[in-house]
């Protein structure tokens, strides 16, 4: 038997061949797995990249064909899909068309531009459109003065985007006598005129690249600087805040102002059915009992300002809409649409076109207080009353002085003086005279029967 030495196992010459080969295998396989894990990483990375690029393409660039007219300046191309408006428009460079109808508004403009300067929505994304109509004061001059001031602000972030001023006179409305106070015949011409003015403004001002349209009256006294964001982040098609107005103490401090924001009621619908085609329901008339829930009356001063409420008719003091609402044809009907006109009919029309119309009952902006004719009368009376009371107080002062002097009680003084006079006089021998007065009063009593005292009744 021949044994090779190597096959003899000794404790000194121990070599585990099997283990060595196993080690080799392990090394090779570990290298292999390392490679494989690298490949795995690579594959994962590629998948992620592809998914990311795909997401980018599908989500943000339209699959539709886009022409290139960069060399022909008179040709413009817009994909309206880019301008449908989102909840956080200010972060996506979405442009807002800010519409302001003006009429004899010169006194309100300083206040209005005060609010404009404070707006927190990026000013370069706001395009302003003004319509100056039928003004007898210097609305135009004031407007241009304020615009020039704001557009030359050293802080360029305060300057606004495109500003367009339009002038259009629609003529004066017919006077409102009692006889034609009912229905469209009276409210009609007034509302129709306002509706036309609003339509003339937005139809010429809106551009393909506007994502939102905001309507604002110039005579709003208190409004949060974040008004645009506050309304926009609700992401509704048409949205209005609650509008109240402050009042003097004697009228109770505050009052709902805009009653044109309401929800339709069965009462309103059945009333509408009884009216003829051109009739125009106006809220606040005793003749028109609609029993509609009004946005203004639902306010809770401590309520959550985010609470929303569905509306059918809306007021025009402050409206934010997606631009597509106007683009696709909603407007302020200058005719009786479903028995309403102007902003109330705009709400109804937008609803009819399938858009959401929302009001915020607990989010309030404050309209200025303009006294009514009754209020004015009362205020005049209050003013004259104040003057009268002042005059009366003055007279009373003099009177009191004279009175006090004339009717001063001097008995105590006289008593002491008398004592002084008679101090050294011996009164013991002064004759005491007794007079009998009995019977004198009897005579007087008899006389009083046929004679009266003079009539004296102090005021």
């Amino acid at each position, binding site marked *: 038997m021949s044994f090779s030495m190597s096959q003899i196992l000794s404790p000194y010459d121990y070599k585990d061949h099997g283990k060595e080969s196993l080690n080799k295998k392990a090394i090779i396989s570990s290298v292999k*797995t390392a490679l494989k894990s690298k490949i795995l*990483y690579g594959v994962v990375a590629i998948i992620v990249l592809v998914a990311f690029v795909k997401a980018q393409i599908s989500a943000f660039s339209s699959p539709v064909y886009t022409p290139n007219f960069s060399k*022909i300046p008179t040709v413009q191309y817009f994909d309206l899909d880019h301008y449908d408006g989102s909840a956080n428009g200010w972060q996506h460079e979405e442009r807002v068309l800010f519409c302001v109808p003006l009429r004899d508004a010169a006194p309100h403009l300083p206040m209005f531009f005060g609010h404009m300067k404070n707006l927190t929505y990026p000013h370069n994304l706001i395009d302003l459109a003004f319509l100056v109509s039928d003004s007898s004061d210097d609305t135009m001059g004031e407007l241009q003065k304020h615009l020039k001031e704001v557009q030359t602000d050293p802080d360029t972030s305060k300057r606004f985007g495109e500003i367009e*001023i339009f002038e259009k006179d629609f003529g004066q409305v017919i006077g409102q006598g009692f006889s034609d106070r009912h229905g469209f015949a009276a409210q009609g011409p007034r509302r129709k005129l306002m509706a036309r003015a609003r339509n003339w403004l937005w139809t010429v001002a809106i551009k393909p690249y506007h994502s939102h349209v905001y309507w604002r009256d110039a005579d709003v006294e208190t409004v949060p600087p974040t008004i645009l964001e506050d309304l926009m982040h609700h992401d509704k098609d048409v949205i209005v805040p609650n509008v109240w107005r402050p009042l003097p103490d004697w009228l109770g401090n505050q009052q709902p102002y805009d009653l044109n924001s309401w929800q339709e009621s069965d009462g309103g619908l059945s009333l509408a059915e009884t009216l003829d085609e051109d009739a125009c329901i106006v809220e606040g008339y005793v003749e028109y009992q609609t029993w509609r829930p009004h946005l203004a009356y639902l306010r809770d001063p401590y309520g959550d300002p985010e609470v929303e409420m569905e509306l059918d008719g809306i007021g025009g003091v402050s409206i934010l809409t997606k631009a597509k609402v106007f683009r696709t044809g909603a407007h302020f009907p200058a005719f009786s649409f479903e028995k309403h006109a102007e902003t109330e009919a705009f709400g109804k029309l937008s609803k009819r*076109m399938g858009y959401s119309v929302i009001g915020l009952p607990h989010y309030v902006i404050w309209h200025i207080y303009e006294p009514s004719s009754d209020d004015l009368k009362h205020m005049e009376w209050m003013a004259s009353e104040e003057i009268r009371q002042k005059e009366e107080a003055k007279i009373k002062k003099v009177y009191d002085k004279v009175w006090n002097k004339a009717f001063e009680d001097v008995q105590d003084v006289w008593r002491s003086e008398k004592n002084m006079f008679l101090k050294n006089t011996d009164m013991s021998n002064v004759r005491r005279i007794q007079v009998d007065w009995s019977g004198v009063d009897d005579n007087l009593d008899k006389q009083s029967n046929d004679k009266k005292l003079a009539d004296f009744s102090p005021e």
Partner: protein
Amino acid sequence: MVYIKNQYIRYIRKKPLSLIAPISVLLLVYFYFFAAHGSSSSSSGNKYSYKKKSRGLFAKNRDSVILKNLPKNHISHYDLNKLSTSADSLAKKEEVLILTPMSRFTPQYWDNIQKLTYEHSLISLGFILPRNKDGDVALKHLEEAIKDAKAANQLKYKKITILRQDTNSLNSQLEKDRHALNVQKERRSMMALARNSLLFTTIAPTTSWILWLDADIVETPAGLIQDLTSHNKPVISANVYQRYEDESTQQPSIRPYDFNNWVESEEGLKIAAGLADDEIVVEGYAEMATYRPLMAHFYDAKGDVHTEMQLDGVGGGAVMVKADVHRDGAMFPSFPFYHLIETEGFAKMAKRLGYEVFGLPNYLVYHFNE
């Protein structure tokens, strides 16, 4: 112990920590690119975040530059009282806006408007194209036509605005119920939205007249604008006919095409009165015989081309509208308005606003014939 065949899983089981690296890389990538699209952080004290959000790497808006050539201080001033619309439109340099919803580009249409004799620098054009394949094809052809005209120095219009519609439900319509009347209503409702979007984004403070000219109108008199404005009517519609070859006589002949120009009839009103609020009356359906006098049938080859007739409904083929009518709010209802929709609803709304609507039965324009 269960033997797991998949070596990756085995590997992960052996060294669970090795997952940290790829997952953290994924998270980093996610946050870097997508975090800005999530909800904004409200920790800054401000109620809203004003951080600009990117629309992604490929979201470069390729629309035309939005604000350019702005006047000083960005303020411009227009006196709309001075805007005139008169029978003598060309002499008074009144601006005309030609609006065309286009789902198909016909070269004859383009050639025809290029031949119009009205001063081209007073004409602006507006097109709106549907958001589908048809729109893509038409847009490419239109782009080509405009560029060719520019190259040949034949492009003299004041301004051309091309819009792509934001809604694309025209496609989905095919799968919907096939009832013709329903489809008609849906189609015309979409059309109304397209017309309004086009109209209200292109109407300028200087626009006096608006000519609605369908993309299928391939032949009109060259003096179309002067002819229609010379009547000085708020709304006036030409009679739309179609040229065809008469099979019996083998002679070129003409036949009426657009039946949406009509005068209201007793029957029509009666039908409308019996309909639900969201239903419409349309011409050309046997189940809805309105017996309305149609302008298409009033054509008299020997008659005076300037003969006018009062209408209650108009089609959209070739209609001249005073811009004031649209500015007052007359639009194309996308919903049943007095049971009318689109151009017919527009005529009704113009009438509600106190304007009169006319047609010219003897003044023909021609529709494309496939």
